[in-house]
């Protein structure tokens, strides 16, 4: 498998705390990677650096042979749109858009034909089991359904990698399991690279690799 992401001597300070402290590792294409650590260990900060949501202070991130650390805000936004899908713990859906529209959101600024866009969003919604919820709004959905919408939204732009920050953190264990199965199937069946932050060992154990963080550094890999 090819290296999709290479991290070299990466550091990020938040206030006076070194949230990420001089770490290096790489992620191969098609891997399912868990990032684990105690609260405050820097796992979410690392995920936001890898996904281009934040910029590092030192070091570099090479994504598919491109350095993303030097990109400006708008270039990073375009990078995310083309390469990355992000799933948040708290779903982060737009309350005024229905399921299909929320899924299609990343495509809104593109030149894709409106009908084509909605068809694509609908197909992805169906593939994650939201067939009966297409016209529903976020406040009409359960937590599990909202997270499915968020995953479908992350898939709409055919990303090279999905970054998921505690994707089951706000769900009950049964629903969390289903979401994990969905992510696993995307990884196994479609070969999608998934990097997931979790504090749950049972979730981390199903991943190909676990990166354990402590005080911003890698404790174990």
């Amino acid at each position, binding site marked *: 498998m090819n290296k999709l992401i290479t991290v070299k001597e990466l550091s990020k300070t938040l206030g006076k705390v070194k949230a990420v402290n001089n770490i290096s590792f790489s992620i191969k294409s098609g891997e399912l990677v868990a990032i684990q650590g105690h609260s405050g260990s820097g796992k979410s900060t690392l995920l936001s650096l890898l996904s281009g949501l934040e910029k590092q202070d030192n070091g570099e991130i090479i994504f598919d042979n491109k350095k993303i650390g030097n990109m400006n805000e708008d270039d990073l936004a375009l990078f*995310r749109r083309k390469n990355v899908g992000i799933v948040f713990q708290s779903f982060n859906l737009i309350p005024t858009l229905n399921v299909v529209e929320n899924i299609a959101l990343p495509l809104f600024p593109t030149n894709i034909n409106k009908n084509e866009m909605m068809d694509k969003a609908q197909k992805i919604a169906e593939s994650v089991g939201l067939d009966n919820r297409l016209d529903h709004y976020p406040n009409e959905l359960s937590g599990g359904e909202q997270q499915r919408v968020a995953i479908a939204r992350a898939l709409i732009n055919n990303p090279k990698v999905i970054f998921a920050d505690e994707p089951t953190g706000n769900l009950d264990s049964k629903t969390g399991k289903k979401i994990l199965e969905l992510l696993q199937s995307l990884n196994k069946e479609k070969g999608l690279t998934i990097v997931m932050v979790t504090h749950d060992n049972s979730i981390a154990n199903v991943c190909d690799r676990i990166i354990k963080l402590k005080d911003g550094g890698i404790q174990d890999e």
Partner: protein
Amino acid sequence: MLRYAIKELVKRKKKYALNILVISLVVILLITLTSLNTAYKDASKLPFESIHSSIIVQKNGNVAENTTGALVSCSLAPIKKDLISNIKSLDGVQEVSYGLSLWVFDEDNFKRILGVNWDDSLGRKIKTKIYVGSLPQSDEEIIVEKTFAQENNIKLNQKVIISGKKFIVAGLSETSGKDIVSSDVYTNLKPVQDMAYNSKNLQDTETFDKSDINIIFVDAKQTKVADVSEELDTLLNNDNSLTGKTPTGQKIGSYSIYTPESFENQISSIFNISDKIVLLLSIVILIGIALILFKSIAHTITERKKEFGIMKAVGFTNKDLKKQLTLEVLIQVTIGFFIGVLISLIIIFVLSGLTVSVNIPWELNPYPHFLESDPSAVNTVQTYPLPIQFNPHQLILPLLSILIISFLAIQLLLKKIGRLKPMEVLKYE
């Protein structure tokens, strides 16, 4: 993006309804204010429109010792007819008409008689008011005003004696007694000039030559009215030795030059508003509107902070956000603007039912005050329908104002959103 913009407006309609309402109010206030202002300015021209003229020239003279026979009022002293050619030569003058207006104190009644040329603009105007009979075919025929005819039981083809001269009633007219230089009797200029020339009382008061007149109506190009008026003042009022004054305070021997502007300050209505007040009100409205919109925008940023963070996280650039927000604002502006225009049209329609009162100065429609039991009754107030109308040009100011305020508001919004870091917004949710 249009779909998202529409959904945003529909789903949060209560919030955006306020913005749309505010935009509509701006349009309504600005259009109504400018329409009213224009209407009252136009109203000041109405007394002149009734005589198809833009400038009136009269001469101030002496008051007669007694009230017998034919006289001229002190505001209508004799003017040499030679002056007409001088006025016609002024740049901007299109047509000049003239007449001779007399007060005639006969034993049986008092009457005002106006001699005119039926072919000039003044004559043509009176001609349109004849509702029965025909124009005078000779110097012995007259037209009698309807109300005067009724009050004095005068019928068509009847013989009438005026200042000792016999006339036949050729027609009856329906003119307003409140118009400028309104009259009870109209006829050819020549017999009225003869009447004035032969009046001992008049000749004792003023020197009257056979061809003299006492009122001149100048039709000037719309854009040249002020210039012509100024030139006339320079031409006619160059005698600094005048000392005596008429009962109304005018210098005896001086010329009075009236234009529609003479009436602008006399329109008696609470709605009479000047340009400066309109400008001030417009500025106050625009500042108020800008504050409301900016406040609404600040609220939008707080309320939609998370949404903007999500949009950025999934790949919206600042340019994409600008497009999205511009679209949302443009939809609000368009809806607010059209609602505003529609309501303005309704208001203008309702206001067109109002009337406006214009005080016609006594000098322009002189009437002997001693003939009225109430002397103030000689002051003429003419009432006209308010000439308010919608002019598409009135859309420019509100449209530009709203677009500029919206543009500034979007810039402010973008500046704040541009600084927004998606992770900072989303990590604490």
